[in-house]
C-alpha cells in the first residue's frame, strides 16, 4: 500500500512531476552525451596516435633515446625482426632510419625528421599510406629518390607533387650530406604537429646517402592490443639491452589524457548527480509542505513515522526510476546513432587536427557507465529525499490538522 500511495502521489501534480522527470532525464542525457563524446575523442586521439606515429611497441637502442646519435642503431636488428615476425600476434613490423634534416625548396625551408622506411613493411604498421593525395607510397618514382611530405610542410615549402627538394643532414662519420628528392605524394594525418616535422623516404636511399646501414627504430603493431604488455615482457626477456616501450611509455601524454578524461567524467557525474539531488530535494520538499495536513492525518490515524518516511523515500525513488531509464534510453539511442554516423565538426577541423583529432567524432560509452549512472541516480534520489522526509517526520499531527 505504501508503494501504491507513493506511486499515486507523484501523479498528483503531473506537470511538476514531469518537469522533474524531464530535468533528471535531460541531465543524464547531457552528462552521458558529454562523457561519450569525450571518450570518443580520447579514443580517437589514442588510435590516431597509435596508427600514425606511435604503434603499439617501439624498440630503440638505449643510447639512441638518450643522445640521438646517428650511429646508435639497433644491434641484432635481424634477430629482433625475425623474432617479432615469428610471433603469431604480430600485425606488422617496420624498421626505420631516422635522421634530422634541414629541408629546402625553391619556396621555403624547414627542419624535419627524415624517416627512412620500407613502404611494404610500413603499410602494415601505420596508415600513412591511406592518407595520401594520389596513393603513391614511395612506390612509383623516376630517377630521383622519392619523398613524401605532409600538406602542412608542402605549404610551408611551397611544394607540390613533382617538386624537387633538397635535404641536408649529417651522415656517418659526421660528414655533411645533401640529398635531392622528388616529392611523389603528399600526406595529411589528423595530427598537424606531427605532419609539420615528418617526411618519409625509402630506407635504402637514406642508408646510401648517410652511409648508416642500420635502423634507429623498430615499430610494431599487434593484432590484439591487449597483448601489448605481455609481448613487451617477452621482448625484454630476449633482448634485455634494448629499450623496448609500449605506446603508453612512448607517448605518456596519451595515458595522461586518459586519466584526465576519467577525472573530467567523474566531475561531470558529480555535477549531474548534484543537479538531480537539488531537483528532487526541491520537489519533495514542496510535496511534503503542500501535504502537511494529509501527512498529519496519516500519523493521527495510526501510520507510524517510519512508514511516512519510506512513503516519501519511495516517491523520490519512483521519480528517479522513471527519469533514469528515460535518460539512459535516450542517451543509448543517441550514442548508438552518432556512434555510427559520427558528429561532423568540420567547422573546427583545423583546431582539432592541431591536437591529433579528426573532424568527425564518434561518441562511445562503456556499457558499465549506463549501469553506474542507473545505480547513482537511485542512490542520489534516496539521499536527496532524506531532508524532505525528515521534515515530514517533524510534523505535529494535532498542529497540522488545526493550522494547515
Amino acid at each position, binding site marked *: 500500500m505504501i508503494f501504491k500511495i507513493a506511486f499515486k502521489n507523484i*501523479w498528483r501534480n503531473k506537470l511538476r512531476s514531469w518537469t522533474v522527470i524531464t530535468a533528471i532525464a535531460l541531465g543524464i542525457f547531457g552528462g552521458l552525451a558529454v562523457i561519450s563524446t569525450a571518450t570518443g575523442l580520447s579514443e580517437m586521439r589514442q588510435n590516431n596516435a597509435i596508427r600514425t606515429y606511435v604503434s603499439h611497441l617501439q624498440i630503440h637502442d638505449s643510447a639512441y633515446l638518450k643522445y640521438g646519435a646517428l650511429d646508435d642503431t639497433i644491434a641484432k636488428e635481424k634477430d629482433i625482426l625475425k623474432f617479432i615476425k615469428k610471433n603469431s600476434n604480430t600485425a606488422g613490423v617496420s624498421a626505420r632510419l631516422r635522421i634530422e634534416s634541414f629541408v629546402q625548396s625553391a619556396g621555403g625551408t624547414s627542419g624535419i625528421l627524415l624517416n627512412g622506411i620500407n613502404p611494404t613493411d610500413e603499410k602494415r604498421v601505420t596508415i600513412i599510406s591511406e592518407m595520401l593525395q594520389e596513393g603513391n607510397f614511395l612506390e612509383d618514382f623516376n630517377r630521383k629518390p622519392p619523398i613524401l611530405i605532409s600538406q602542412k610542410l608542402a605549404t610551408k615549402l611551397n611544394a607540390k607533387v613533382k617538386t624537387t627538394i633538397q635535404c641536408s643532414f649529417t651522415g656517418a662519420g659526421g660528414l655533411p650530406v645533401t640529398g635531392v628528392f622528388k616529392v611523389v605524394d603528399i600526406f595529411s594525418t589528423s595530427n598537424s604537429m606531427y605532419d609539420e616535422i615528418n617526411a618519409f623516404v625509402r630506407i635504402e636511399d637514406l642508408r646510401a646517402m648517410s652511409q648508416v646501414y642500420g635502423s634507429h627504430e623498430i615499430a610494431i603493431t599487434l593484432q590484439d592490443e591487449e597483448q601489448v604488455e605481455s609481448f613487451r615482457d617477452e621482448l625484454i626477456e630476449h633482448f634485455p639491452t634494448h629499450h623496448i616501450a609500449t605506446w603508453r611509455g612512448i607517448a605518456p601524454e596519451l595515458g595522461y589524457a586518459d586519466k584526465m578524461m576519467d577525472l573530467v567524467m567523474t566531475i561531470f557525474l558529480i555535477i549531474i548527480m548534484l543537479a538531480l539531488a537539488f531537483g528532487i530535494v526541491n520537489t519533495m520538499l514542496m510535496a511534503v509542505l503542500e501535504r502537511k495536513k494529509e501527512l498529519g492525518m496519516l500519523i493521527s490515524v495510526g501510520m507510524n513515522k517510519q512508514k511516512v518516511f519510506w512513503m516519501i523515500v519511495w516517491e523520490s525513488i519512483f521519480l528517479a526510476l522513471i527519469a533514469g531509464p528515460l535518460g539512459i534510453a535516450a542517451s543509448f539511442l543517441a550514442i548508438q546513432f552518432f556512434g555510427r554516423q559520427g558528429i561532423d565538426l568540420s567547422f573546427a577541423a583545423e583546431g582539432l587536427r592541431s591536437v591529433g583529432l579528426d573532424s568527425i567524432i564518434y561518441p562511445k560509452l562503456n556499457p558499465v557507465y549506463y549501469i553506474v549512472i542507473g545505480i547513482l541516480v537511485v542512490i542520489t534520489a534516496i539521499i536527496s529525499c532524506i531532508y524532505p522526509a525528515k521534515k515530514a517526520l517533524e510534523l505535529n499531527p494535532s498542529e497540522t490538522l488545526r493550522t494547515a
Partner: protein
Amino acid sequence: MIQVTDIQKTYNDGKVQVQALRGIDLVIKEGEFTAIVGPSGSGKTTLLNIIGGLDSPNYGKVKIGNTDIAQLTENELIDFRLNHIGFVFQSYNLIPVLTAKENVEFLMLLQKKDDKERNERTTKLLVSVGLEDQINKKPNEMSGGQQQRVAVARALASKPDFVLADEPTANLDSTATANLLDIMLRLNQEENITFIFSTHDQRVIDRARRVITMEDGKILSDSMKQMTDK
C-alpha cells in the same frame, strides 16, 4: 472506558499564553454517543486531541481502558491510536489518490489484516454507510457528505474502542448532516460503538445522548438525555 482526570493545557500563542483547558475531569463509558459543545475557543478540539493522544496535557491524566496514554512512547501511541481510536475530521481528510474502498482498507493494511478480512469488512462498512455504489470513486468524485461517510467507515475499519469526531458536520448541508447522524446513531445503537463529537452544530446536539458543554477550558454542564430520535 475513557477516564480524564484534571487535564490542564496551556498553549504559547506568540507572546501570549492561552489556557485552553483548566482542569477537566470526565468519564466516558462504552457505547456512549456524546457531544462536546461550546463556542469556538472553548477547548473542545484540544480536549478531543488529548483524549486521542494527538496532543499531550501539561497536567493531568488520560486513561483509556487500563492504559495511561502518557506512558506510551511515540510509536506505541501511534499503534495505540491505530488499534483503539477512530478519527473523523471536519474536512474529511481522505487520501485523495485512493478510492473509497482503498481509503477504508488503508488502516486494516497498517494492521496487517489478511485480504479476506479486509475485503469483507470494507464491503460491510461501505454498505453500512450507504456507499456500496461508490467504492471505486476517488474523494474528488464524491460529495462532501459522501466523503464524510467514507471517513466514518475508515474510522471504524480498525475496530476501534471509540470514535473521536471533530466537528464532523461543519462542512455538510442539512441533508448530508442528517444522513451522517443517522448512520452514526445506528452504528452506536446496533454495534455499541462509542462516539465522541466536538460540535457547535445544533442538529448534532439535538441527537446526542450526552451533551457536555464547555466554555473557557472548563466544563459548564454535563447532561444525559433520553434518546428521542426516530
